[in-house]
């Protein structure tokens, strides 16, 4: 068993949950660690009436169909447990999620993960399920300081073969993964453990799971070991070298590359997205290495040919293909093959544009827009906010009713200091969500920068009148104070800052602004008191509200991408048909 490091962790329905070492009582609870309903149900009549009511419908559909996929690095394994005295059979499911997946875009603080398990017997009968929330208090960034999360849960199962499915979803980004595994209960002897991945793991036992039983399994070397490490190590091991090209061999080369694309898409259609990406990554790299002058053009043409074929016959399949190219682009970025990364991103964009103009169904429009959000997130990560803006503008054309997307676009305009455009984007967000606090704040701040202090004050009014303990409140109070300072009336800022400081005592900038306002108002002792509080508060808070205001909208875009990924998985059948058709046609 690995040790639990210094991360606070809270499992929903904590009673009965046990940690391998240390106790939950030592950890402060995460602020957003609201438990998710858990429960085991048996024998619901048929799919898709799943006993997982709180799961997103699209994810529930994926779980019901058992389609493997998603962007989170995750593995699932299961082992039957010895029968109880009552004769009921059970199994232990182990889910591992890598820290790298969990930490992506994590700003520090509470990190929530939702885990759903579903056991389906022959005939599609759901025989067991559970749905848990896990919250981990972790530092910012991908390197969370531990290997990952290992979740262990006991499921009561009827004898026979079951298909066990696990879905994990990261709360902040919405990124998810689904894995499936076959299991026979009661078992023949459990599979030999391949050895747990070394390092520090945050380990969680789901409520109702016997820690002693788990420890006994571990001692016997029979604890299922999903080994996410194997998955992460599945990166391309070697580069496929293509033979040198002569002009006469050009068509053959292109045909080889088209075949390579189709083979990768075949893997994708089978739910083996990692292998598909790795295969095409090798093919791309090999083509470029073999012919640095023409290789890029050739893989581009091959990709376009495949895309064209899919678009003409199976347009629904364009969505998984687009997301596949986006994954490929990220893989190339990771190995610093920038040109290939760019070509893959362009292919993804082309695939989406073909789907959006074919003409699209309402669902197509929504999913394409969500996928464009994902591409925009990639652009932001790679330092291309201008292109991210273009993608978001297109996304808002296709699916204009989503306030978070308008807000994301507004943030990018603010960073680009295109204040008029930012004001319009925030205005659209407010059309759809008139009470959106962040939108009101941004509208106020933009108005102030546009030298419209009265309008800025009006926008701030509802925020200050209905205070909340969040970063928006802190920045709103500072913005109101800023207006007062600019008017030369620091005394007008004092009550606003006093109320906000009282509400948010850990926010040092509020206390600092209050110290200034009091000093300028002639209240020196009050200023000293507030200054002392600023220094004290500064040693407690986590992410500063002003920093949060300036954060790139990665989280909202990644959440959106997740929706597209779920939609894409539901279209893998269409992709399988498309690939078959294209292969027949060659």
């Amino acid at each position, binding site marked *: 068993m690995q040790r639990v490091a210094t991360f606070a962790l809270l499992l929903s329905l904590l009673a009965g949950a046990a940690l391998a070492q240390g106790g939950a009582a030592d950890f402060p609870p995460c602020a957003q660690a609201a438990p998710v309903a858990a429960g085991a149900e048996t024998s619901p009549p048929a799919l898709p009436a799943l006993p997982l009511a709180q799961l997103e419908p699209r994810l529930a559909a994926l779980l019901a169909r058992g389609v493997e996929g998603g962007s989170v690095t995750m593995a699932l394994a299961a082992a039957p447990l010895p029968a109880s005295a009552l004769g009921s059979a059970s199994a232990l499911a182990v889910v591992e999620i890598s820290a790298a997946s969990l930490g992506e875009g994590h700003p520090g603080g509470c990190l929530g993960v939702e885990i759903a398990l579903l056991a389906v017997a022959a005939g599609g009968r759901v025989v067991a399920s559970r749905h848990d929330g896990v919250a981990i208090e972790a530092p910012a960034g991908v390197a969370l300081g531990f290997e990952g999360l290992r979740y262990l849960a006991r499921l009561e199962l009827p004898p026979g073969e079951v298909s066990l499915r696990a879905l994990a979803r990261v709360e902040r980004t919405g990124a998810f993964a689904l894995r499936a595994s076959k299991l026979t209960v009661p078992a023949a002897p459990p599979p030999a453990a391949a050895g747990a991945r070394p390092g520090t793991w945050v380990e969680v036992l789901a409520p109702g799971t016997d820690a002693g039983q788990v420890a006994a399994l571990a001692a016997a070397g029979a604890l299922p070991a999903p080994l996410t490490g194997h998955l992460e190590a599945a990166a391309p091991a070697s580069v496929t070298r293509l033979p040198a090209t002569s002009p006469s061999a050009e068509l053959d080369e292109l045909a080889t590359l088209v075949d390579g694309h189709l083979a990768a898409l075949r893997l994708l259609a089978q739910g083996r997205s990692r292998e598909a990406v790795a295969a095409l990554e090798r093919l791309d790299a090999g083509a470029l290495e073999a012919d640095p002058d023409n290789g890029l053009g050739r893989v581009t043409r091959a990709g376009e040919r495949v895309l064209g074929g899919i678009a003409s016959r199976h347009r629904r399949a364009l969505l998984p293909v687009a997301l596949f190219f986006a994954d490929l682009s990220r893989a190339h970025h990771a190995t610093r093959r920038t040109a290939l990364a760019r070509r893959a991103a362009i292919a993804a964009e082309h695939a989406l544009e073909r789907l959006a103009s074919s003409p699209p169904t309402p669902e197509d429009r929504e999913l394409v827009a969500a996928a464009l959000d994902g591409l925009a997130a990639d652009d932001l990560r790679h330092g291309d906010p201008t292109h991210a803006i273009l993608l978001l503008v297109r996304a808002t054309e296709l699916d204009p009713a989503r306030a978070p997307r308008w807000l994301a676009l507004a*943030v990018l305009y*603010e*960073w680009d*200091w295109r204040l008029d455009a930012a004001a319009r984007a925030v205005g659209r967000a407010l059309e759809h969500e008139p009470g959106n606090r962040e939108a009101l704040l941004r509208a106020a701040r933009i108005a102030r920068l546009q030298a419209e202090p009265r309008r800025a004050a009006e926008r701030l009014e509802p925020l200050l009148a209905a205070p909340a303990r969040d970063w928006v409140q802190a920045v709103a109070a*500072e913005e109101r*104070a*800023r207006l007062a*300072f600019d008017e030369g009336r620091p005394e007008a800022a004092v009550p606003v800052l006093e109320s906000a400081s009282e509400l948010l005592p850990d926010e*040092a*900038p509020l206390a*600092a*602004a209050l*110290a*200034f306002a009091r*000093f*300028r108002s*002639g209240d*020196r002792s009050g*200023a*000293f008191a507030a*200054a002392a509080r*600023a*220094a004290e*508060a*500064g*040693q407690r*808070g986590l992410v*500063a509200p*002003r*920093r949060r*205001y*300036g954060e790139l909208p990665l989280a909202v875009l990644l959440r959106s991408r997740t929706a597209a990924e779920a939609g894409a998985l539901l279209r893998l059948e269409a992709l399988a048909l498309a690939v078959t058709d294209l292969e027949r046609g060659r």
Partner: protein
Amino acid sequence: MRRRLALALLLAASFAGAAGAAPRFDIGLIEPAAGVPVIGPVRVTAEVRGGQALTVEFWLDGRLVGARDRPPWSLEIDTGEAIVEHRIRVVAVAASGARAEAELITPKIQIDEVVELPLQQAYVTATRGGTPVLDLRRDELRVVEGEREQKLVTFERGDIPLAALLLLDSSLSMRGKPLDAALGGARAFAAGMAPLDEAQLVLFSDRVVHRTDFTRDPDELVADLSGALARGGSAIHDHLMLALLELEKRQGRRAVVLLSDGVDVESVLNVADLESVTGRSSALVYWIRIREGGEGAGGRSIWRDYAQHTAELASLELLVAASGGRVLDIARPEEAAHAFGEVLAELRRQYVLGWYPDGLRHDGSWRPIRIECARKDVELRARQGYFDD
């Protein structure tokens, strides 16, 4: 800044000097001085003679307020807001069990009449061709406010005790070598402190990440820095304002020494706001600016565009100059220690001029100060004015 001095009649000023001393083991009070009323935070310093003390206890008005188990035998105690009589006692205990104590009764004061005498002070650095000029006489310096020469009432030079606040940027851009070098600079400053100097160390990013109390103990100033981490954005203006307020509570010559590598990206306050604070403070502001890669660009953030950042940087430079301090550009973080040493040396060589300004209107207007030197080729640097509140 303006000081309100109370002309007061000292009434009952009684003093009990050092307690009867044992032949071999004794303790005496060095500060506060006898016969002087005390208010607010007061530094109590004792001297142990004729042996080594295991501990020294500090008592105020019959209450134990602190103890030290190693020299310096010094502690800051809070004597409250009222100017009343206080009984300050120090008790030394030797390893042998021998005890010695000393007591001081500070006087209360009775105020018969209050007259506002806003003493203004300026700390003046004099150089000729970059070399310090250390032998100026009182009659060679002139203070002019507007067009009116002011009558100097105080003139000091040399090593006057100092209250310094070392303000180190520890935002993310300072990660690694720059922060290490900044901390090295703070250590160099601490090592150069004179016995009566006091300093506070503050590390900040978008919040205060580490701070000490004001201390005269150089070791205490730079203790526990091994865990200092660079993280977060940089809010220079907010923390410079807080530093200036903190210094307002100190006595004597005051200075902020800011070390930073970049632009302010997250402050609520702008430089114009800061001017209204520095213009009411006599503290000098020094800015040790790390400029790796030559001229620093203004940068860009969601809070200010490139032009605004550039303008703010220029304004901050002007503000530093207006305080009487200066900007010290260093090309590499490793030069920080030298820069801190340079600041400390400059502070030690300053002249302190004091005067009661005439013609005050208390209307919040800006009163420019010009300091002139009768000696040729001597360049003077001092604060450039103050607000007439």
